[in-house]
């Protein structure tokens, strides 16, 4: 198999991992002329594929041979896809040559499990070590950790990698047992707990005042497949909250279950609910940056699932209309963040400008507010929604018109 053919197989096999982020972590560069690469902290998307996803890293599998049989996975042992395996040198060369041409920010390396978790993890660590120590590569490295691998391997992985991730795969332990019988949810949680502990230990100075080497400075993330099992959105968001608070994850990625080549008969083959994935991300943002609690978001769902037609913040505001309209010139930050159409940046600008003068409708437009959404929920010096926020069909103003049924 040529390098080009291997790359085709092993990037195709890696695309079901949603994450491609290269953000966070320490800043590095190669101004000393002794190596290559830099990380800026904010990440760069070097291209976008027609699926709308950012291509920031060379996201590949070391091999797609795998001894596990996870029903949702294209690489499961019972699948008939073409198999391939990179040598560590090939991964290193591809990473460096792509990097030198400014195609990528770095490498996101994942792998099927071959022989044993330890042997697979040892090969991945070897690639990271070659990049960092032989080639002085200072770009971004994201390693997908194998939960059952030996702690020393994880320890070494964290020294080379900016980010480590372990996929929880599915929202409930029950679903993991059903669809990924070789994986152990408790072991996955322990591995994430371990990464958090090692990261925290890496931040503390010893009694001599020395800092230990940083461990996975860009933190850890995980991914959940949405729509393969029966879990509703509230269940998914509760799991996320648990992961964020327990293991200090940077991100939980939601991946709408996508039809795969040679799919297992155990799974439904339906069009991926992309809007559901989008709504979950919106709700995730509300939890992390807007001060919402899961129960509040859950209260505005129907049957535990987020409204697909309007975003979760608007859904919450529509369900809590007694709190609106809100006086933008007086309201607290916490409440401003709950107004549909006002983002964290706009709220920051409102607070800074409010110290100088009373705000008008036009001011809010200049500050970047989405007034089409916000206007029924706010009052300003020259704006009052009048009856707008009371009308019964307020939701209909935001929801898309009902689709006409297709003739059959």
């Amino acid at each position, binding site marked *: 198999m040529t*390098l*080009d053919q291997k*790359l*085709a197989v092993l*990037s195709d096999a*890696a*695309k079901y991992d949603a994450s491609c982020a290269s953000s966070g972590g320490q800043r590095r*560069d*190669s*101004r000393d*002329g002794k190596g290559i*690469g*830099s990380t800026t902290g904010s990440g*760069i998307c070097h*291209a*976008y594929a*027609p*699926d*709308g*996803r950012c*291509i920031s890293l*060379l996201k590949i599998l070391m091999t797609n041979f795998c001894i596990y*049989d996870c029903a949702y996975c294209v690489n499961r*042992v*019972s*699948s*008939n896809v073409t198999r391939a395996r990179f040598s560590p040198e090939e991964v290193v060369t591809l990473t460096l*040559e*792509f990097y*030198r*041409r*400014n*195609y990528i920010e770095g490498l996101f390396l994942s792998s099927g499990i071959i022989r044993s978790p330890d042997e697979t993890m040892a090969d991945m660590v070897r690639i990271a070590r070659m990049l960092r120590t032989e080639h002085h590569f200072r770009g971004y490295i994201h390693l997908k950790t194998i939960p*059952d691998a030996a702690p020393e391997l994880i320890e070494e992985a964290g020294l080379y990698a900016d980010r480590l991730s372990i996929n929880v795969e599915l929202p409930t332990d029950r679903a993991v047992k059903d669809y990924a019988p*070789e994986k152990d949810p*408790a072991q996955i949680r322990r591995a*994430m*707990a371990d990464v958090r*502990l090692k990261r925290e230990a890496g931040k503390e100075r010893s009694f001599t005042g020395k800092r230990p080497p940083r461990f996975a400075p860009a933190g850890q993330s995980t991914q959940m497949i949405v729509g393969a099992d029966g879990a509703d959105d509230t269940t998914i968001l509760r799991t996320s*909250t*648990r992961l964020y*608070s*327990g293991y*200090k994850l940077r991100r939980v990625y939601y991946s709408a279950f996508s*039809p*795969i*080549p*040679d*799919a*297992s008969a155990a799974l439904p*083959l339906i069009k991926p609910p*992309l809007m559901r994935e989008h709504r979950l991300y919106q709700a995730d943002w509300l939890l992390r940056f807007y001060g919402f*609690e899961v129960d509040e978001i859950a209260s505005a769902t129907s049957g535990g699932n987020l409204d697909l037609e309007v975003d979760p913040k608007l859904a919450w505001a529509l369900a809590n209309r007694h709190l609106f309209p809100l006086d933008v010139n007086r309201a607290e930050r916490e409440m401003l963040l709950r107004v549909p159409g006002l983002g964290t940046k706009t709220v920051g*600008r409102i607070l*800074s*400008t409010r*110290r*100088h003068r009373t705000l008008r409708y*036009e001011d809010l437009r*200049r500050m970047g507010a989405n007034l089409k959404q916000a206007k029924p929920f706010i009052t300003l010096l020259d704006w009052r929604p009048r009856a707008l926020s009371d009308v019964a069909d307020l939701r209909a103003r935001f929801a898309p018109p009902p689709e006409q049924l297709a003739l059959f």
Partner: protein
Amino acid sequence: MRRVELPEIGTFEAWRDEARALLGAGVPPEELLWQRGQGDGDLFAEALPPVGGAAVSVPRGFVDLARLVVWHRDPERFARLYAMLWALRRDRRLLEDRGDPRVEKLTRMAKEVSRDRHKMTAFVRFREIGQPGANRRSFAAWFEPTHHILELTAPFFVKRFGDMDWAIFTPDLSAHFEGGALRFATGATRPDLPEDATEELWRTYFRNIFNPARVKLKAMQAEMPKKYWHNMPETRLIPEMVATAQARAREMAEAAPTLAPKRAERITARLRDGPAERSHPASGELTDLSTGLSGCRRCPLWQDATQPVPGEGPQDAALMIVGEQPGDREDLEGRPFVGPAGQLFDAVAARAGLDRRAAYVTNAVKHFKFAPRGKRRIHQAPNRGEVQHCRWWLDLERRAVKPKLILAMGATAVESLTGDRRGLTARRGGIERTQDGTPVLITLHPSYLLRLPQTERAAAEALFESDLRRAVQMLGAINAGPGADAPAG
């Protein structure tokens, strides 16, 4: 009308110096005509020798804004910046007013430049131009930015590509990094760069990382506008990728499930029926505890916790210490009393002469009960049912260790051991008995001490310490006593 000419290289510094001097000399904005490079300019404006003026200070935020705005392609940018400087003399906090139209215009221009800069760091594509065997490898690229951002963006490439030579040509200027030094040159035309074989590999990657089951063209174009496409080797594939996506997705959905390869069955059977790879070695009665505990579903607390936290210590310990439940730290490590409360306990125990390593340390409830609040997990007291269910495990530990004395810390431990949690303050320091007669010394929980206000803390800590001393004395008496080897009670 005074004409101010700015050079094409070092434009920001030149503008800053001119503006500083003009402002110091009190020249109003309407008397100035700004110009970058050799333009035809206004025939009626005259270039005057620089004016000398007093030093001026400006808000920090303005300099950051100007560093971006000077590279905007709008010919009015220098004049707008100077007008803002002029306005800032009277109202130094003007920039904080995000509703002001002048501020809004400048911030928007800064944002446009900043975005263009970001896209340049993303979409420049180098081709290798050096000779094989050369000391440093060399690369070159042609790029067409929307604004005049090469000088602004070049430091990014300097930091990133330290060990190679590179050149970036734009219609405006070119940047050259050779042997570790950066220089700029004017008047670039599109260079003829040789084919680079790595581009084919990159296209292979681009084609295969795309998931045909989810086409989102708008999202792609919002972030990668078409104006950048013609200088990127991968974008020529997009039309074909989009055209065939639907058919490929349909094909995947319609394909009938295939028979698994023969080896699959063998491998799966080996994994599922084989012995667990990392089972803990058996070494005595209590090893059943950790394996048994990990499957415990007696109450729902296991669902949110990382792992159960079994007791720890010698299995023939004379002293058993029982706390409430694992906390955040204990839940992560899987060991009892390693968090802040555990550290306080260790400190007080050391003062009281109590050797924790000789004791069996455990909790009344083995899973961490909490409520997530933002980024933290807030401890929640276990309820009566949870304490009752978990007593099964504590009883197992008591039967295995057969302690001579139990130190019960806090109401939950007391409830689990004596059946009653009421009136802890009055009972503290007293000795009670478990159903089988083992003496239980009642004391406070160290995390209670941590929650007390500083003024009450010292007194409570002294009580706690005296209880620990009492435990040490009792153990001494038990060990020295005639019936020391007999089972307690």
